[in-house]
C-alpha cells in the first residue's frame, strides 16, 4: 500500500514546482494569457498550502520548496511558455489522482476537484484534451 504521507509530500513538491513554473510562464506571456498564468499560480499556491496542512495535521514533515527548478526545455517565448504550463498541469493532475485514493473520503473531493481544474487548464494552454490526463 503506498504511503499517503509520501504521496502528499510528492504532491506538495509538484505544487511548488508548478508555482515556480508559472513564474517562468508569466514572464513569457502578456495580456489575458499572463493573467491566466497568474491566476493558475495563485491556485497552485493555495492547493500547496492545503496539502501542506494535511501533512502537518498528520504530524508528517512537509517538504521545503527548492530555490529554483530546471525546466525540461527553455522558456523563451509564448509557445514554449504554453507548453511548459500544459506539461506542469498535466503532471500535477497525475500526482493528484494518485493521491486521491490514499486519502480518507472527507479529503478526496477537494483534491479530485483540483485535478479536474488542472485538466481544464491543460486544455486551455495546449488546446488538446488528452484521453487520459496525467499521463505526461
Amino acid at each position: 500500500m503506498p504511503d499517503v504521507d509520501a504521496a502528499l509530500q510528492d504532491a506538495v513538491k509538484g505544487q511548488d514546482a508548478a508555482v515556480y513554473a508559472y513564474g517562468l510562464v508569466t514572464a513569457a506571456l502578456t495580456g489575458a494569457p499572463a493573467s491566466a498564468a497568474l491566476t493558475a499560480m495563485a491556485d497552485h499556491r493555495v492547493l500547496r498550502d492545503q496539502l501542506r496542512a494535511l501533512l502537518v495535521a498528520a504530524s508528517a514533515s512537509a517538504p521545503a520548496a527548492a530555490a529554483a527548478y530546471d525546466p525540461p526545455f527553455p522558456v523563451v517565448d509564448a509557445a514554449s511558455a504554453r507548453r511548459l504550463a500544459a506539461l506542469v498541469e498535466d503532471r500535477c493532475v497525475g500526482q493528484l489522482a494518485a493521491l486521491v485514493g490514499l486519502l480518507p473520503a472527507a479529503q478526496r473531493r477537494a483534491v479530485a476537484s483540483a485535478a479536474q481544474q488542472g485538466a481544464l487548464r491543460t486544455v486551455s494552454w495546449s488546446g488538446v484534451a488528452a484521453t487520459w490526463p496525467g499521463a505526461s
Partner: protein
Amino acid sequence: MRSHLPVPLVTSRRQLLVISGAMTLGALAGCTTSPSPSQQSPSGTADPDGAVRATVASSQTALAAAFAATVRAFPTLAKSLAVGDRHVSYAAAVTATATATATALPTASATDLPLPVVSPAAPVVPTTAVRAVAALAKAEQLAAGQCLTQIMVTVDPELTRIITLIGAGCASAGSVLAGPNRA
C-alpha cells in the same frame, strides 16, 4: 538547491496495463448498455467497489452511445466529436480494475450507498447540431461531477485514481465541446 522541473512521472506499470486492457475490452463495452452491478469479481470473491465500478462503466458506456448517436444524426460532426471516443476506454478501464482488486482488498459496506444508475434507453439526440454538441458538453460536465461523488465511496486506491482521471478527462472533453477555451 536546484531541482528538476516539473514533477516526477506518475504513469505506473499497472496503469499502462489497465489502459492497454481498455483498448482490448473497448469493443465489448460498446456492446453493453446495462452492465450488471455485480458484487462479485471475476474470481468470484467479494468486490467492495462492485457497485461503483458498475455505475461508472454504465455511465461511460451511455456517454459513448450518446456520442455515437449524435455522429449518426450529424455525420459532419464526426471529427469534432472524436473526443467522445474516450468513453469506451474509460468504461473498459474501470472494468479491468476488478480482477486485481478482488484478491487484494477486504470487503466493505461502501457499496450499499445509493448511486445513480444510468438508463439503458437509447440516447435522444437534439434536433440541431449546435444543441446536440451543447448537450454532449453538458453530459461531460455532469459525468465529471459524478466522478467526484463516486470517489467518495471507493476502496481500491487504483480504481479511485482511475475514476479521478476519468473525471478530469470528462471535464476537459466538456471544455473542448463547450467552445473556445484557450488562455
